[in-house]
C-alpha cells in the first residue's frame, strides 16, 4: 500500500512538474522545472527496476539536457539584449496561438484511446527476457541491459553513436555560437573544477567497468565524462591550440569508428556483422565501451560548447 502510494505520488508529481515546466510563463523557471522533472523521472526509473536508465536519465536527460537548455537560454537572452525591442520578457511569455482548448479536445481523446490500449495489454508478458536470459551466458557480460546494448542489438548502438556524431556535425556545420567567456570564472569555480575532474574521471571509469555486471556502462560513463567537460568549459578551460583539429575529431569519431571496425573484423572472422565469439565477447565489449565512453563524453561536451572549437588565439 505504501509502495503504491509512493508510486502514485511520484506519477502525479511527474505530471504536475511536466505541466508546470510546459506552461510556466517564465522560461528560466520552465527549464529549472524541466530539470526537476528529469530528476523525478530518474526516481521513476528506479521504481521501475531500471537503474541503468536512471543513471542515464540523471546524467543525460536531466543533467546535460538541462545544461544545454540553460546555456541556450542564456545565449538567447544575450542575443535579445542587443536589440531594444526584444529585450522585454514578453518575448518569452508562454504565447499561445489560438484558443488553448482547441487542441485539448482531440488530445483528450488520444489520452483516452492510448490509455485504454495500454490498459488492454495483458498483465503478464515476458517480451524477450527469456531469450536474453538464455543467451546471457555467451554474451560476454552479465548485465542484461549491457548485453542487449552491446551484443544482441549492438547494431542499434552503433547507429546511435552515429546519431550523436551527426548531431555534432550538424551543430558545427551551423556555425553555432561558441560558448563565450564573458566573465572570469573566478577562483572558486576554477578550484572546484580542478578538484572534481579527477573524481568525475574516476566515476566514469568505475561506471564503465561495472557496466559489465551491474548498472552502468558506456553511456552513463560517457555522460559523466561529458559533465566533467561541461564543468571544465564553464570554468574557462579551452582546448589547447593544435588539439582542436584532428586529435579532437579522432576522439569524437573513436566510438562509432571502433564499432564499425569491430563490425567489419567480426564479419570477416565469424561471418556475421558484430558476431563475437563467446571467448572474445567480453574483451570486445569492453573495448567498444571504452572508445564509446570517450567519444560520448567528448561529443556531449562539444555539443555544450556549441560552435566549432577554434584555436584560442583566433577565438576572440
Amino acid at each position, binding site marked *: 500500500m505504501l509502495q503504491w502510494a509512493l508510486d502514485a505520488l511520484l506519477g502525479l508529481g511527474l505530471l504536475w512538474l511536466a505541466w508546470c515546466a510546459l506552461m510556466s510563463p517564465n522560461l528560466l523557471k520552465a527549464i529549472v522545472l524541466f530539470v526537476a522533472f528529469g530528476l523525478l523521472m530518474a526516481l521513476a526509473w528506479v521504481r521501475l527496476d531500471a537503474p541503468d536508465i536512471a543513471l542515464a536519465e540523471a546524467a543525460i536527460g536531466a543533467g546535460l539536457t538541462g545544461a544545454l537548455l540553460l546555456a541556450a537560454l542564456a545565449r538567447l537572452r544575450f542575443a535579445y539584449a542587443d536589440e531594444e525591442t526584444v529585450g522585454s520578457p514578453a518575448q518569452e511569455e508562454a504565447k499561445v496561438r489560438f484558443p488553448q482548448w482547441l487542441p485539448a479536445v482531440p488530445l483528450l481523446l488520444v489520452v483516452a484511446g492510448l490509455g485504454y490500449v495500454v490498459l488492454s495489454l495483458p498483465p503478464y508478458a515476458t517480451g524477450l527476457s527469456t531469450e536474453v536470459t538464455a543467451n546471457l551466458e555467451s554474451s560476454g557480460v552479465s548485465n542484461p541491459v549491457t548485453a542487449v546494448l552491446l551484443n544482441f542489438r549492438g547494431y542499434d548502438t552503433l547507429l546511435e553513436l552515429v546519431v550523436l556524431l551527426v548531431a555534432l556535425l550538424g551543430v558545427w556545420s551551423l556555425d553555432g555560437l561558441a560558448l563565450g567567456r564573458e*566573465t572570469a570564472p*573566478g577562483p*572558486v*569555480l576554477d578550484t*572546484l573544477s580542478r*578538484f*572534481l575532474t579527477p*573524481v568525475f574521471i574516476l566515476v566514469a571509469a568505475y561506471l564503465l567497468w561495472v557496466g559489465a555486471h551491474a548498472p552502468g556502462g558506456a553511456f552513463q560513463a560517457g555522460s559523466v565524462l561529458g559533465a566533467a567537460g561541461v564543468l571544465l568549459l564553464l570554468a574557462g578551460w579551452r582546448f589547447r591550440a593544435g588539439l582542436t583539429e584532428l586529435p579532437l575529431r579522432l576522439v569524437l569519431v573513436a566510438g562509432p569508428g571502433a564499432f564499425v571496425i569491430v563490425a567489419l573484423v567480426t564479419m570477416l572472422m565469424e561471418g556475421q556483422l558484430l558476431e563475437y565469439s563467446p571467448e572474445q565477447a567480453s574483451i570486445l565489449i569492453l573495448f567498444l565501451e571504452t572508445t564509446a565512453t570517450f567519444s560520448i563524453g567528448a561529443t556531449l561536451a562539444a555539443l555544450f560548447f556549441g560552435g566549432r572549437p577554434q584555436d584560442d588565439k583566433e577565438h576572440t
Partner: protein
Amino acid sequence: MIPSDYLSVALLIAGAIFFLAGTLGLLRFPDVYTRLHALTKADNVGLGLIVMGLVVQAESWAAVGKLLLIWVLVLLAGASVAHLVARGALQRGIRLWKR
C-alpha cells in the same frame, strides 16, 4: 527494531527537520543572500544527519565510504554554487537586504 534502528530514526528525523528549516528559509527570507544562507547551512547539516542515519544501517564499509563521499561532494558543490550564485547576484548589482 534494534537500538541502532532507533538511532537511525532519530538522525533521519533530525535531518528532515533541518531540511524543513532550510526550505522554510528559502521561502520566507527576504533576499537572495539570506536565502542562500538558510538553504546551504541547513541543507548541508540536514544531509549530513541523513547520511549518518543511513551509515548506521550500512552493510559494508564500502557503502559507508560511498555515503560519506556523497556528503562530501554535495558539501563541495553546495558551497561552490552558493558562492557563485552570491557572486553573480553581487555582480548584477543586487543590493544586500537591510532592515
